[in-house]
């Protein structure tokens, strides 16, 4: 019992930085995981990845002018993300090009610009910070930001839920009954951007998208309803954060990759063992009902 306590609880009780890391990553999961579910259902998982890269030049510009400061880097990332999201979204809405191609084009431009900016000034250690984040060094300022992002995300999802589902399920129908189609699409892209920006403080630009996509992708194997899928994704996100931080603490591993790898492990288990997973589908098909 004592050993279990030492293994699972005491790191969080004894160290303030662990508490903050836990608090921050849980807040992040609460907002990012449901957004990830919709990203996945809209077949935009890779767009999320692209968007995470797109944030880099903004964050790098902040870093270039103000050093490793949270606010300028966040604002920069936000601006870059929104420019890319709106640009790619607008190209796909108003021209024949699909969103996957326009998103790829915009994020590549953005990423190249970001790497260029970082290389102008930063050492490789700084670059590692931007790319992989510093979940164990989250300060109150960053926690406040992540909390605000989670709150905005959850409220927006609640308010626009019906439109978001309709826009995924039958966009043409939504267009015939309401003018919300395009606004909802851009609101959703905005949510993706702010959650990625929130995530890059803790996990870095490369891994923040992981906490968005992996729990959602894993939840897909356990349920056939959007509502439960969002809840399951958040639960998987929470579990991954706790497991990842403990792993990072005990094995002295970098925290961001540890969290994402934990989520990755849940995903792999879900693929195989989920109620809608690969094994179950193989095992159950032998028997069938009369109607």
């Amino acid at each position, binding site marked *: 019992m004592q050993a279990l306590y030492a293994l699972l609880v005491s790191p969080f009780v004894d160290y303030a930085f662990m508490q903050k890391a836990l608090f921050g990553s849980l807040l992040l999961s609460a907002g990012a995981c449901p957004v990830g579910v919709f990203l996945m*259902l809209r077949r935009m998982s890779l767009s999320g990845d692209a968007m995470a890269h797109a944030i880099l030049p903004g964050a790098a510009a902040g870093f270039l002018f103000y050093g490793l400061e949270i606010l300028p880097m966040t604002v920069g990332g936000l601006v870059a993300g929104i420019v890319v999201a709106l640009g790619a979204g607008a190209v796909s809405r108003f021209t024949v090009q699909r969103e996957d191609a326009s998103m790829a084009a915009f994020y590549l431009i953005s990423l190249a610009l970001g790497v260029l900016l970082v290389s102008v000034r930063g050492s490789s250690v700084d670059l590692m910070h931007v790319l992989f984040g510093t979940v164990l060094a989250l300060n109150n300022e960053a926690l406040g930001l992540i909390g605000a992002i989670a709150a905005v995300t959850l409220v927006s999802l609640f*308010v626009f839920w019906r439109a978001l589902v309709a826009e995924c*399920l*039958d966009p*043409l*129908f939504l267009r015939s009954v*309401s003018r919300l189609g395009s606004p909802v699409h851009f609101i959703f892209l905005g949510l993706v951007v702010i959650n990625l920006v929130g995530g890059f403080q803790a996990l870095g630009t490369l891994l923040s998208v992981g906490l968005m996509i992996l729990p959602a992708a894993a939840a897909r194997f356990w349920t*056939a*309803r*959007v509502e439960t899928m969002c809840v399951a994704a958040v639960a998987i996100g929470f579990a991954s954060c706790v497991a990842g931080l403990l792993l990072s603490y005990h094995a002295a591993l970098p925290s961001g990759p540890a969290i994402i790898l934990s989520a990755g492990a849940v995903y792999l288990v879900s693929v195989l063992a989920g109620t809608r997973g690969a094994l179950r589908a193989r095992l159950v098909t032998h028997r069938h009902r009369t109607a």
Partner: protein
Amino acid sequence: MDKACLTFRDLTLGYGSHPAVHHLNGVVRRGSLTAVVGANGSGKSTLMKGIVGALKPMAGAVTKADGVRIAYLPQQSELDRSFPARVVDLVSLGLWSRRGLLGRHTAQDRATVAEALAAVGLEGFETRALDTLSGGQLQRTLFARVLVQDAELILLDEPFNAVDAKTVGDLIALIKRWHGEERTVMVVAHDLDLVRHNFPETLLLARQPVAWGATATTLTPENMARARRFHEAWEDDAPWCEPDAHHHAHDHGHAHHHHAHDADALASANGPKAA
């Protein structure tokens, strides 16, 4: 009773600079049941999109009577069948016009949805996932959504495609029920026998309207032959249709002189209700 539900004023719809519906004039009466007939590429679906507002007119206008709500069943649905939703979720989307984004779905609304499913013969399908439905079942589900929408103007674009004979009968019965409820219904259809037996009025399109009126007088062999003669392909060197030939834009009954070769077709094209 003879009030207009839809009015077309010199309506031209198209893609790029090429018209798909060319200079359509006329009135769809409130409570009428109209079949829209024509060859592939004759502008039937384009007209539907224009009415819904999914496509902006290149010239002219289509006006709805005030307060008319539209229920539109497109030919090529953008429905994502792999989305984790149940039959009731899809049919409940039809409540949008009454409940909007945030309105709570009441017990009454749920009863409406259940009734609509029963009306299309899908009792017991409420919790079925969309990806387990057959093509015909999905089509009936979409009809149920149209029922729930409770709209004054109902537009159905080729609703009988890939649907078995019994289901066609069921769907026709529903369409007649809507007609009986004084709703305005326009249906794009290919089966001329079906149109002759069930639709009082027909609009025959061949990019230009060829004929529009009572089905028996519209679907004559001469009109059908004329509709078949139209040139489906676009031509990049086709002459521009000059706007200055259109100062009669609001003058419905006027024939279109700049289409001299089509003038006889268009004389009847403006329809019995146009002038």
